[in-house]
């Protein structure tokens, strides 16, 4: 695991960056923005690396998602500054907007669980380890969070994929 005690930031960097980029892109759908968010999340991780020794993946995913959601939030005021043309190339724009908005509405703990479980595709056991709670609590938060998410997302959420992969 990247965050084993004594692992250098440089060694853990590729895996953490891929994680941060993936969750950011799922929310934002824009390569430039997702790279920017991934870099920001990893920069913050670099600064607090001494604190993150052990298991930084959950922290990085959570921070990247929050940054992505925050970035999404800023888009709602007006069209983005014209550096990238999200709307022209993204077939899933509406779904991403719904996703960002829906994640924002979730209570903090539910959001953390949903993000790690479904946005980062972690197993319940890994989510529990990252958040310091029991697998049962993860299951409960995930169920409630997913229910709320589905309610917010409406028809845009694919059904039948609730308990998908445990990529641990």
């Amino acid at each position, binding site marked *: 695991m990247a965050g084993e005690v004594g692992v250098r*930031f*440089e060694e853990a*960097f*590729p895996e953490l*960056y*891929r994680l941060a*980029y*993936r969750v950011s*892109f*799922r929310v934002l*759908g*824009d*390569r*430039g*923005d*997702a*790279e*920017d968010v991934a*870099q*920001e999340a*990893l*920069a*913050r991780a*670099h*600064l*607090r*690396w*001494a*604190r993150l020794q052990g298991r930084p993946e959950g922290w990085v995913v959570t921070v990247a998602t929050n940054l992505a959601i*925050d*970035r999404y939030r*800023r*888009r709602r*005021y*007006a*069209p*983005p*500054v014209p*550096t*990238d043309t999200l709307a022209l190339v993204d077939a*899933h724009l509406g*779904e*991403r907007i719904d*996703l960002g908005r829906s994640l924002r509405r979730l209570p903090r703990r539910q959001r953390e669980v949903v993000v790690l479980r*479904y*946005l980062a*595709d972690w197993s319940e056991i890994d989510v529990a380890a990252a958040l310091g709670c029991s697998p049962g609590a993860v299951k409960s938060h995930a169920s409630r969070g997913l229910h709320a998410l589905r309610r917010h997302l409406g028809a845009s*959420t*694919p059904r039948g*994929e*609730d308990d*998908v992969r445990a990529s641990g």
Partner: protein
Amino acid sequence: MFGHLDDPAPPVPDARTLRAVVARAARLRRRRVGSALAVVGAAALALGLVAGLSVGATGSTSSVAAFDARVGTVPPGTAVPQADVAEVVFVDDAHGFALALRGEQTVLAATDDAGRTWRVVSGRLPTSLPAQIEFVGTTHGYLWGGPPTPAGAVPVWRTTNGGRTWSRAAIGPVVSDVSAIGPDVWAVVGDCALTTTTSPPCPVTVDVSLDGGATWAPSAGSPAVVEDPELSVGDQDLELARMSQAHAYVLAFGPLPAGGRPLGRLVYTADAGRTWVGRADPCPAAFGAGQQLAGSGTLDLWLVCGAEANAGSQAKELYRSEDGGRTWSLASAADAPVLSDGVSATAGAGLPLRGYVSPYALGHDALAVLTPTQAWLFPDRSGVFATTDGGGSWSEVASLVGAGFVGDGSGNVVFVDARHGWVCEAGTGLWRTTDGLHWQRLG
């Protein structure tokens, strides 16, 4: 569940990406404010660059690769490629020091020919980038701000032999900023180690040394600012701006608390730290993501406020004070409500929208104030801009562009007086002016 939202061809993180992240981390840390006309700004954090390591026309790709690939500690005297220089300070128009990247290692380099060539002074430093350096002359210097120790400390080290060896100063645990005027050295020190998880705001002291960093004691008065433990990573949410041996400002700010105002606070001393008084922080909450302070004297202050950044752009405001921070007026702005929570700047234009300043850029080192009317600004991922009317309007420096300056990466602008200055663009190289007008590429 969301696999269909994935990027079908995600970017592969490489060494350049890592450098960009390290550079960004460094920029988060750096809140450096120097003193008046002496070394206005100081360092650059060149590295990596969001926009890429374009090794320039000097064709130094092979030398960079050779330097990075050397095995073991690089010996003193080894030539350092310009593109590896990451942070520079100059003590006069010829002599300077740099933190340079050698692969993942940080080395100290020096120049005695105004930056044309750099050679390793020490290949084994007690800390690494995103560290900061400051030198008083060619022998005495200070190094701080690198990654925290396992105990959560961010120490400061001093050298008395031009950087060949370093000794740790007995202050801490978290040294956020250092400023030296001759042997008179001040350090802003947080009392909480970074290993503290969640805790209330942390007390801050200003520690003073009158013997070049050999011995230290807290200043007689307390600056009455706190360090935000959550930001503390950066633990660089504090800036020390010394305008003279007696006059100094401490700027403290943190991330926006939910629904609240930023934590920005500015305090001032005119009696070498015996007493501190509060000064108004003019930056509105929406522009409070980051701030940097500079000045050309004890009364002339320039305060740049930045909103959250997005895709290469950032809303900004520049406030000026001619009375030491008692009153402020908006000098210019880069307005983009989409980037500042829907809030528009009070008035004005004049600043470039593109590019990042604090907290994403090089803190104080992106802004060099020479006089009450003349200053230089190097926002990240942008270009170098100059003003000659006190900050009301800014123009991109054309002579730099003509000299091969790219301006889409990270860097900073440094002056030792009104004529002699350097622009360092990470991964590309250095440019120098000797008249404050025209720029030439070095190396």
